[in-house]
């Protein structure tokens, strides 16, 4: 019975981690980030020394990330940035095409942050927030 529970618990945790999806990553030297700081950073507010990278528009990880962190849908995010751009308040972050490119961009700059699917995390970057 006990083994059955263990197996069940393990398989459940496997299902959960398969769904765990997006994590915010930083340089290996960086410390953890709060959810509110991440929200600010990805909306171009707060600490201006943070270099933010986004995945390209239409990427499913990008949509999942924003739903969890900034609370904005793709269309809302676009409307938000067009407002920021045309009022001179800021420009959307630079984009990278893939999780690999995201990791190399974040790994090479101690001030950089980005996000990838948890499954893509490796030793070159550090998970600084699990939203």
């Amino acid at each position: 019975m006990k083994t059955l529970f263990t197996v069940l618990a393990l398989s459940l945790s496997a299902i959960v981690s398969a769904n765990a999806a997006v994590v915010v990553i930083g340089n290996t030297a960086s410390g953890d980030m709060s959810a509110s700081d991440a929200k600010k950073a990805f909306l171009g507010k707060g600490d201006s020394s943070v270099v933010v990278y986004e995945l390209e528009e239409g990427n499913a990880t990008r949509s999942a990330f924003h739903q969890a962190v900034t609370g904005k849908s793709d269309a809302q995010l676009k409307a938000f940035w067009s407002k920021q751009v045309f009022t001179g308040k800021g420009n959307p972050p630079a984009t990278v095409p893939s999780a690999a490119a995201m990791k190399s961009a974040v790994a090479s700059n101690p001030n950089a942050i980005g996000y990838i699917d948890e499954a893509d995390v490796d030793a070159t970057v550090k998970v600084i927030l699990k939203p």
Partner: protein
Amino acid sequence: MKFNLKALPVAISIAMAPSIALADDAADAKIAKLEQQVQALQSQQNASLKDKVKLNGFISGAYISSDNDAGYNSADTSANFSEDSKVGLQATFDISDRTQAVLQLMMRGEYDWEVEAEWAYLAHRFENGVKLRGGKLRVPLYMYSDYLDVGYAQPFARPPEEVYGAVPFSSYTGAGASYDVDFDDSTLTMQMFGGESKVKSTGTEVSNLIGANVSWTDETWTLRAVYGQAQLDGSVKSEVDVELAPGVITQADYTVLELNDEKGTFTGVGASYDNGEVIAITEWTRIEVDAAYPDSDSGYLTLGYRIKEFTPYVTVAYMKTQDNDERLPISVAAATQMLAFNAERMAYSLGLRWDAIDNVAVKFDVTYADDFGDTSGGFLNNVDSNTGQIIYDDTLIYTVKFDAVF
């Protein structure tokens, strides 16, 4: 000592093999790291080029028509493709980390596509967080003032005329300062502005314009308050039809009111809510101007609901002049002012925003305006200039519009 020379290379290579393999691994890792660094440097270089100058633009095309010629948003019974059609091009130059120049050129169908700089300013952010801007700027009286023409960033087909039509100028030349206070989960922005402007349609000079606004947002809720004041000088002219002979009509400028550095004040409050599904936006404003120039109150409430790429919305808006007793028809001049300035109306809009494709929204809107009281409803065309009679007591306006950003 006998040395097996033949065996030596074998022995050496056996001894070296692991280290060669190790060196290969190390070299591979090193190369991979270098490649990564080169890639990163390249992307940084590309980014820095891209960062220095940014070009953006927006474009709107609109079809407007009405069931009559009352003149709501310049609509009449024939199709109008000009009034709300516009193109904006913006260049942002990063002069340094803290200094940038922004130029936004606009062409509006309403003004025969004449090129105008709507924003043209230099901005500098000081170490203490204060952002100073100087040049040509938007007068930040309303919630949508800063991006009045960027339809893509707005839920509705156009900001409600009742409220946004009350101030006849939207930009000024001068300076402004803003400061953001960051809280854990929200931001408070304080802004001050000062300068001068001119009313395009009437030629009225707007001087000593000063004001301040404060807004707070957590990206779901936004609360805002604003105050502004200015001196208005010059003649308020209106175009009227003059019948020279029976059937021969010409248009002439008629001076409705001579303003002599009259003080005008603007007070407004606004709030909005957007949780990703439900949208609610409301603003209320009060304008007070000395002399016979109208004082008016206005307000609106918009409610919307996002269903994937569709956002249906409803808006109820009103405006009413508050000082009609200053324009009693005791003389011809006062009677003309009464006809030109007294205004009240209600407007009800039913609309749909459709995020059709990337960066393009299509909007459909039907607006019905009525309850004009004894007034023209605020439409100069709605007064028969010969008889002084009000022509229509309601109007219906259809709008189909696309808004794109690039």
